[in-house]
């Protein structure tokens, strides 16, 4: 199976909304997914990501308005069973009374016209080998391990060659090692099938590892859309900055391109692009260095070292600034280890500063 990007479908969401009993749980979601793209919906529980997935799959009606188009075709009047969208469920939803083979053959038997028995057997065998489960075809789901059940669910969702595959926290129930190996397998299958994938998770590492693009959800709305690098390097809000990776946030005031905070001794580089008024800036821990005197750095904040954690290649240094706020630096572990209780400076380059909020949001 060679890479065929044409096998994936494009998906467009316009102003999609959903309410439950008068309570709006999703408001105005807009999204364009490209053919063959791997898009992750990331957000805390209750942020609307699974609701959006259910709307795309047709398990719920977008009663608060909006449109969905799959390859330019509106999904409004198409019932769930005619959408040709594969879904992998959180707890797999394998039919307990059917064997692995019968589970995987099930969607093929629903096609019209119905494929003949030989075709069905051939297609089932092909996906079984894709997920390396040839030896388990005649077992029942309760005779399989969690990871194996997961792969059967995946095989069942792709066997009828849908152009769009939805995965709802499919790795949530598995342990860390198994998750990582299945993440790699998922990437491989995505490459081989060329199908468009929408993947729901609340695990930021999973999102960063797997996705072409990430959609960050917050309180029923899209907070930011971007590639993993874009979201990590230039988060559009404090929420995104703190949700994806560790961050140090400073709240202060911008006046004529200078950032000021009422902390004694702290020094900040000139800030371009911020309107006058309240502002929040952010720096990632790996861009922060620990220095004894803070001399010569564009940004320097005096701190008291609270904790030092050794983790292989890096040191995680926790400092408390003059306001009592906790800050984090992640530095190479080859220098002299700072001692807990000592006074020091957290320093970083001017270009490492990001503005994450201005005006009322700050």
């Amino acid at each position, binding site marked *: 199976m060679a890479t065929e990007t044409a096998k994936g479908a494009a998906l467009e969401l316009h102003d999609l909304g959903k309410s439950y009993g008068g309570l709006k749980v999703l408001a105005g979601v807009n999204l364009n997914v490209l053919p063959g793209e791997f898009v992750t919906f990331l957000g805390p529980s209750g942020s609307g990501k699974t609701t959006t997935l259910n709307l795309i799959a047709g*398990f719920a009606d977008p009663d608060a308005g909006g449109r969905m188009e799959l390859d330019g075709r509106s999904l409004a009047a198409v019932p769930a069973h005619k959408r040709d969208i594969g879904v992998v469920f959180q707890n797999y939803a394998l039919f307990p009374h059917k064997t692995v083979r019968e589970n995987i053959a099930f969607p093929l038997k629903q096609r019209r016209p119905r494929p003949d028995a030989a075709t069905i057997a051939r297609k089932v065998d092909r996906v079984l080998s894709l997920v390396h489960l040839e030896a388990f075809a005649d077992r029942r789901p309760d005779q399989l391990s969690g990871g194996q059940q997961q792969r059967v669910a995946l095989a069942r969702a792709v066997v009828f060659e849908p152009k769009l595959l939805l995965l709802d926290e499919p790795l949530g129930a598995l342990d860390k090692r198994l998750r990582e190996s299945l993440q790699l397998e998922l990437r491989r299958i995505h490459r081989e099938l060329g199908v468009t994938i929408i993947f729901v998770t609340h695990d930021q590492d999973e999102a960063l590892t797997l996705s072409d693009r990430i959609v960050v959800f917050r309180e029923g709305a899209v907070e930011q859309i971007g590639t993993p690098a874009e979201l990590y390097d230039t988060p559009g809000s404090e929420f995104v900055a703190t949700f994806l990776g560790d961050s140090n946030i400073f709240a202060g005031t911008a006046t004529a391109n200078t950032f000021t905070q009422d902390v004694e001794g702290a020094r900040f580089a000139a800030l371009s692009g911020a309107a006058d008024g309240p502002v929040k800036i952010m720096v990632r821990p790996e861009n922060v260095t620990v220095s004894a005197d803070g001399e010569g750095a564009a940004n320097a904040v005096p701190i008291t070292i609270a904790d030092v954690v050794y983790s292989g290649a890096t040191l995680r240094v926790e400092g408390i600034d003059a306001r009592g706020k906790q800050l984090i630096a992640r530095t190479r572990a080859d220098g002299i280890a700072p001692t807990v209780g000592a006074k020091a400076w957290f320093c970083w380059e001017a270009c490492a500063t990001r503005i994450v909020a201005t005006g009322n949001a700050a």
Partner: protein
Amino acid sequence: MSSGSPNFISRNRGMLMLMAPIVAFLALFFAWPVVLVLGNSFGGDGGPIGEYIEFFTSNTYVRIVFRTIFVALLVTALCLLIGYPYAYLMVRTKGKMLAFLTGVVLLSFFTSVMVRSFAWIVMLQRNGIIDRIAQWLGFDGLVLRGSTTGVTIAMVQVMLPFMIFPLYSAMAGIDTRLERASTSLGATKWTTFRDIWFPLSMPGVIGGSVIVFVTSLGFYVIPGLVGSPSNQLLSHLIYSLINTVLNVPLASAASVVMLLIALLVVLPTMMRYDVTGSTTSRFASDEGRGGKQSIWLWIFGALVIALLLVPGLVVIPLSFPENRSFAFPPQGFSWQWYANFFSSRQWWGAFITSIQVAVLVTFTSTVLAVFAGLALRRSSTRVRTVIRALVLTPRIVPGVIIALAVYGLFLDWRLNITITGFVIAHTIMALPFAFIPIAATLEQFDTRFEQAAASLGASRLTTFFQIILPLISTGMMTGALFAFVISFDEVVVSLFVGGVGMRTLPVQMYNSIANDIDPTIAAASTMLLLLTAFIVIASTIFTQRRAR
């Protein structure tokens, strides 16, 4: 969210369509005739409340009301005292022992009420087993037939399974870790029982007591056969007011009084506990806990087993006498009463009618219950409570009232003494029993299976037949079995609805006991007993295998 808005209808169209058949059925054949009874009670010659004045100024009637309440309370208390330790013992066992203890209760539950009533008459009558034993021990003899004591003993034995199942179901739901936690916190065994176990088993205590009380209140068969006119109970009064005195308004007023007593007990407890839901839902579960139990508990358990089983067994020897007599021990040996059962138009005809009715009732009530169960899955918690209450209501209305109500309606519609009439009347009684196991299985059933099937391209219909139906088949079989047994065993409604040309087997048995001495009933009882034992043992083995 207002559930009365037009939005509610469009949002729940599927649910409402599934509910339509059962709602229409119950409204037409259950609620409406009960309303008619209510109307009749105000429609006598003596003005709107004339019947009630007549009823409550009669010393006899008022005494009957109090006697009925007293007997029902006594039966409930005794069932609780006997049933609680037994249910406790069941929860403490597992595997084969649990299957045995459960099987005994099931066997008793499924043994025809007529068979058990007949057995009690034989035991309690003059020259019956108990009388003979008392004489042999040197007493003057002990005849309990015709006494309130005899009626109470027989009713306790018949009602016991209705108490044990909810008790067991509630106790099986108690988390064993709570007991360990309590012990580890320094509580003694007794304190743990009093402060942890008993309060947590309360839903079972309440559920069982309500069902036993309400059923005892309107129980007809045993008071009618074991009791005597001098200690008449309310159900019998209603029947004789209709059949002997032909005073429909007064009978209706008496029914309304009985219904009010039942509601007075049921409604307050329904507010606090899920009374109706716990009746039979989990009797087949295998979650025993093991552990060593006190020898006294086992001895008590053995006595309860004897109480549940022995009355059934005494009918067997009575089916072989040479003469037309129920004397004990029976004289001689012959198969003539079995031959009579199969050759007599009355007995064999009644048997065939019963089978026909029961098969049809099984079908209609299972289908209606599946519809209602599916609707349950598609509705919010609040709507769910309404659906449950609606389907289970016939269970908490005394049988004699349903009988009177349906009889009145069928008079107008010419449905008395027809198969259709029997099927409709029995379906009302069978619906709650069919619904409970089916609804329980459907509720456990994960919505994700339906979504998965839809995402894989299966239509609603395909999903129902290929995914839902196979997965709920066990619950459906249980529900169907209950429906069959309830219909096959039903007496009081059939007494009203049936007639000379068409009788069900239990009615034939009732008339036989009431009117003559004919050992054919012992032969019929023996065969029913064997059939029941076969079904219960087979299904116990089947579920045991499944559980493994």
